[in-house]
């Protein structure tokens, strides 16, 4: 984690605001690659929140890191904290950039499909693609024009309430051999795009997506940590990972959103139903592993190897 100063806060749309962080001494920050994200730590009263946000600034620009946060009033509170309480001048802790959504540089062409705030990882990729002189096509889909957070001259804008919705089959069917597809947006949009691409014959190695899940609330449940000899209660609005951390149990993590695999944990005993909510585990692993960053449990007893 590095401590940075929030130096600028600029609204981009009614719900999306851009935040700029710089080193307190003006020192350069490590450069990154397009599609990378950072974990932002927020001390929200008694609660320590950690949310992942895509970096939207130029990856080669070490003078600062910029993120864009969409306010989610039904969310757990991280985006509300950023919108309401984070103010320029504040010092905040950020993780180092991590990229789970990098460009495949062997691609002949890059097809980027963004839904709403899902435009953010592509904002880091566009300068990279421009520098490489790579062929790309950016489709920016929003429900209404006021959702548009950035004016992108190179993008094709699709506004569904103006009737210019993207013809997905048409776009997918027109791509030359060697095109890689990247999609970021809501879970429903990602699933729809990947399902159509697969049905049209796109192979999995040409398909890339990123969605950070927020740990959804649920009924409280107990989890027994065999190695630490502790039994914890995971609260309704807490993730199992957060409960482990609150109990002082060292658990690995990286994206905290079910995507990266870092927090994968062995299940030693399970009398009940694991509510898997991650994008990581394969179906044949789901009876013996759990991703504590997003997944929950219903039943009598869950014992994990922590």
């Amino acid at each position, binding site marked *: 984690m590095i401590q940075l100063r929030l130096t600028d806060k600029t609204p981009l749309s009614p719900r999306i605001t851009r935040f700029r962080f710089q080193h307190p001494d003006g020192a350069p920050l490590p450069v990154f690659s397009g599609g990378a994200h950072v974990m932002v730590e927020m001390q929200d009263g008694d609660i320590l929140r950690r949310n992942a946000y895509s970096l939207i600034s130029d990856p080669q620009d070490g003078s600062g890191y910029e993120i864009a946060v969409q306010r989610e009033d039904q969310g757990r509170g991280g985006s509300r904290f950023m919108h309401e309480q984070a103010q320029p001048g504040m010092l905040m802790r950020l993780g180092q950039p991590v990229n789970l959504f990098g460009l495949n540089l062997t*691609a*002949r062409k890059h097809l980027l499909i963004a839904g709403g705030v899902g435009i953010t990882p592509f904002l880091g990729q566009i300068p990279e693609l421009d520098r490489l002189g790579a062929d790309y096509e950016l489709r920016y889909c929003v429900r209404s024009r006021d959702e548009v957070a950035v004016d992108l001259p190179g993008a094709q804008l699709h506004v569904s309430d103006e009737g210019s919705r993207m013809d997905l089959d048409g776009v*997918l*069917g*027109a*791509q*030359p*051999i*060697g*095109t*890689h*597809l990247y999609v970021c947006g809501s879970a429903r949009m990602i699933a729809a795009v990947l399902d159509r691409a*697969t*049905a*049209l*014959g*796109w*192979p*999995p*190695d*040409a398909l890339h997506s990123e969605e950070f899940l927020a740990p959804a609330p649920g009924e409280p449940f107990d989890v027994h940590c065999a190695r630490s000899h502790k039994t914890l209660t995971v609260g309704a609005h807490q993730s199992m990972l957060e409960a482990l951390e609150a109990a002082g149990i060292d658990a690995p993590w990286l994206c905290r959103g079910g995507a990266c695999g870092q927090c994968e944990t062995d299940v030693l005993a399970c009398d009940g139903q694991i509510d898997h909510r991650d994008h990581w585990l394969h179906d044949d692993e789901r009876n013996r592993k759990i991703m504590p960053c997003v997944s929950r449990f219903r039943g009598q007893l869950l014992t994990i190897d922590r």
Partner: protein
Amino acid sequence: MTSAHSIASSPRYAPLEPRACSAALMIADDAGMAAIDALIGQNPELGRKATILRIGATAPPDTLPAALDGALSQARMGLQVWLAGSQGLIARAQALLLAAGLPKGAIQSEHRGTAARRMQCVHCKTLAEGVTTDPYTCPGCGRALFVRDHFSARLGAFQGVCIDAETPGDIPEPQELRL
């Protein structure tokens, strides 16, 4: 001396399976046609939309680059390719497809026929088609070459390495390659 799949780069072959696609391309030699027929038997619809390139007496392997150029000229993502036949045909076709930008995940291959391999001499870079013994004699430089399982997807060939570099003249009796 060599065993299949002993290293990660060795090609993996599996029975051809139907897969959703916008366009289908099938490439086979005489031995491989049985695998293509079995595939189409599972999914006749696939057979109706497929372009089939048959490599054999009337269209020898050297015609493959030109034939693929034609087949790929209008191709779009959504193309799936099925390869069946000798290891040499599969290796050459796959290398050409990858060079055209097609992701590996869009290519399936099923080996039919003999254990013969397409080999590259790592010393003089000569490609030898249909190598059936280990070691074999390089048609380019005459070295006796050990048949490795190390496969270059880019070249579409297994690698042949001088077998008597440290003890010149000590060349084991050639053994027939087995599957």
